[in-house]
């Protein structure tokens, strides 16, 4: 079923997508984050990605844990069901929601504290299960909401606002995900919508868990010099690998292709991801190469962004499990309850 909202007033000039909705229909309530917070840029990119993909908001389930980042699902897709779980446990709740209704378009938003400290186990095992979801990790190197302690993604030597210096080696979610068998691994920067929006769209089209690590500076606690998660550092040290275009199923494939070698990857829903190779060095289908490349550039002080790895043969949680096509939550009771006769039969064996 498709419900198309028909707003009373049509803003002149407000563009409509294939399901007749405007960008405004993909917004949520007003952000209460700090002015300039990277997370708000991610929200804007998410809004645009859903709009451009013409996904009806009510088909979406947006989930998060606790943190500034975790607050953002209220700021987009006001007409989608949302859920703020407890801290660090978004992956398991999303697993359950997706288990119950495989038709849900699941997007999970998390922070680096939420995903790499308290939630490291859930992120890792969510990746292993290959839950069909887009996992956006809004990575700022600190616990924003509790006022700026180091998170597990803070770099060694990075300074907190109070002057404390981090002494623990960081966890890079991209390397971790590659290590744990993730089927879609990318990184972007909150400030770069041109890169982020297509990545989000590709992630939504991916069947399985698409992890996008988004460097999203915390202007209040971690946007000073010496922080590798600052606007400045990211702008200076960023290196793009394999930029992509995303062509939704229903769009005509544009004929004009930009220079450089381009690879087309067909997603499960039929849409196309076009991966442009900058220097021919990176092959998004080679997990080991992706790991090596990210690690190498990191050692050189660069922040590599782009799509690192995409498993075109990804089999998601439900398909691995062999779940039926109808969402479990919608199966009629008759198809679930074996009934009294079966019970009688069964009990013959219990004597």
């Amino acid at each position, binding site marked *: *079923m498709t*419900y198309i*909202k028909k707003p009373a007033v049509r803003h002149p000039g407000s563009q409509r997508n294939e399901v007749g909705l405007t960008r405004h229909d993909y917004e949520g309530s007003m952000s209460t984050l700090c002015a300039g917070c990277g997370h708000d840029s991610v929200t804007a990119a998410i809004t645009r990605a859903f709009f451009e993909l013409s996904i*009806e*908001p*009510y*088909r*979406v*389930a947006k*989930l998060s844990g606790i943190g500034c980042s975790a607050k953002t*699902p*209220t700021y987009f897709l006001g*007409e989608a*069901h*949302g*859920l*703020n*779980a*407890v801290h660090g*446990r978004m*992956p*398991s*709740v999303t*697993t*359950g*929601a997706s*288990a*119950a*209704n495989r*038709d*849900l378009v699941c997007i999970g938003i998390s922070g680096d504290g939420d995903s790499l400290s308290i939630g490291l*186990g*859930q992120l*890792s*095992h969510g990746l292993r*299960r290959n839950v069909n979801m887009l996992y956006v990790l809004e990575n700022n190197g600190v616990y924003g909401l509790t006022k700026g302690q180091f998170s597990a993604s803070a770099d060694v030597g990075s300074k907190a606002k109070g002057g404390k210096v981090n002494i623990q080696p960081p966890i890079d979610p991209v390397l971790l995900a590659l290590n744990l068998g993730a089927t879609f691994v990318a990184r972007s920067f909150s400030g770069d919508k041109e890169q982020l929006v297509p990545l989000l769209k590709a992630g939504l089209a991916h069947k399985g868990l698409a992890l996008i690590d988004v460097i999203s500076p915390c202007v209040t606690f971690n946007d000073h010099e010496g922080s590798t998660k600052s606007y400045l550092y990211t702008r200076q040290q960023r290196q793009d690998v394999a930029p992509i275009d995303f062509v939704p199923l229903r769009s005509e494939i544009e004929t004009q292709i930009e220079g450089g070698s381009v690879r087309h990857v067909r997603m499960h829903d039929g849409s196309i991801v076009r991966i442009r190779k900058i220097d021919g060095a990176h092959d998004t289908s080679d997990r080991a190469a992706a790991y090596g490349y990210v690690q190498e550039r990191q050692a050189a002080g660069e922040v590599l962004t782009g799509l690192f790895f995409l498993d075109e043969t990804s089999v998601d949680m439900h398909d691995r*499990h*062999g*779940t*039926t*096509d109808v*969402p*479990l*939550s*919608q*199966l009629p*009771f008759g*198809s*679930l*309850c*074996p*009934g*009294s006769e*079966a*019970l*009688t039969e*069964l*009990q013959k064996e*219990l*004597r």
Partner: protein
Amino acid sequence: MREPTVDRTNDFAFKIATVNGTGSASANGLIMQAIFRMGIPISGKNLFPSNIQGMPTWYEIRVNREGYTARTPRFDLMIAMNPATYARDIAEVCSGGWVVHDSSWPLGEDMGREDISFLGIPLGQMCVEQFTGSRERILMKNIAYVGALAALIDVDTDVVRTMMEEKFSRKPALVKSNYRALELGYDYAKDNFECPLPIRLEPMSATDDSIIIDGNMAAALGCVYAGATVGAWYPITPSTSLMDSFVQFCERFRVDPETGKKNFFIAQAEDELSAAGIIIGAGWAGARAFTPTSGPGISLMSEFIGFAYYAEIPTVFFNVQRTGPSTGMPTRTQQGDLLLTAYASHGDTKHIVLFPADPAECFSLSVAAFDLADRFQTPVFVLSDLDIGMNDWVSPRLEWDDAYRPDRGKVLGPAELENIENFYRYVDSDGDGIAARTLPGTHPKGSYFTRGSGHDQFGVYTEDGPQYQEVVDRIARKIQSSAMAAPAPLFDLQNESAAAPVGLVTVGGCDGAVREALALLRAEGQELDYMRIRAFPFAPAVSEFLESHEKCYVIEQNRDGQLRTMLALETGVPAERLVAILDYGGTPLSADTITRVLSRSPGDQPAGPPLVEVRS
């Protein structure tokens, strides 16, 4: 000493002491099943170690023609197959009783027990002679003691042989060696002892309408019949077999024969927190979802439980209790998690808890749990225990009413949403404390934001006291009102018209032992009423019972009298009128524990281990 004149036919108990991982479990199961098939009321209690191989393990069997099959600590016969525990096993035999032991190698002593008879059988030696390979020799020794036992207490060997044929229908060679081992023991006993002993079996027809089932299997069946589609778990004794059974039943009943696709989803989660998260997500998205666990799991899930309570998400938790605290004794039983489960998580919380007494109730209360969870939009706990969950019970055949339809509670679907102005998640429009919910993915008008942070009745984030209170006050009313919808307490009253002076109150798996004690005490002339509680929050009938009795004995299996605590707390009945009889050593309750306290002729009562604590 037992009086010799008493007829011990179909009224005795014996115990088999063996070593874990040597195949004795299936031999013991064979005995249990054979006696069951002879139509005699029987129970089997498996006291196994938290170990895979090599540690002592026991199997206790009680037969009772009147149907009292709660555990008894008094054994007429010991099959003492484990040298490591020989001394303590011998000590447990009743005066006048018997010991079967392996005389292949001399154990030497009678351990000072001149009041019991020792029946030595060279089981090991015979098996060495008759069988080859250590594996077969070890396994067949078990069957040989089954044979000896058959001769000694008159187990119908035809029944045993039939079972062997059924079990090994595809391995005729195995049937043959089993036959042979059975005969070995049987013949030796017949030839050397006066068979049968006074403790002996005689066929009855008391179990014709019964099955053998454990509570975990029955609970799993309840989940299947209630229409649960999502299960998540992390393995933990003694709950593991609940999910194992669910998997098996789903593979049997829930796989599309054509496509091979599955009408269920099961996740072995990475831990209990994740298992809780999965079922909460599934409940939120509209599936009936559950997790089986035990005490440590509930502790770990505590944060999530509070979330589901406050965000009002239906979920079902099975807590198959084991002996606590901490890791405790994972293979021993207890009722130590009553308080935890009732009030789990920080802040003001209170949960619906159901207390099955046996496998049949594990089945029916599972179904009730899903209905209550959906109706009251809250986590519901089914509090079973190791004894109920993992031991084989003779149970009346389970019944199913095909007219049953799940109570999914107030869920607004697309059609309803189409017709309303606005949907607000936590507005209680009809005053019953329950607000309607919607499922994700169904309709644009149904969207709302679910959160464990402060929210008002519209579901909007709030830090405002009165708005916050409006919601938590309604939730408190809602949970309290479940008391009228949940399974009512069961009573056995001396007299319908007037209350007896004393009441016995219990919960869960204590039922059998308390009923047996009740019969014994009433036979002494005592006037007693009985109430078994089946749900928390307590129904008004619970307070009424407590109030109408001068004194109530609250019988439960934990150290701190947790049920008594909850009763005092929730009903307001003065604690001094509630006397706790506590048994918490880890074994299933026996009637002795109660009669030792309450019998008017305690001299007649057998001395027992100091397992009972009376507190008032």
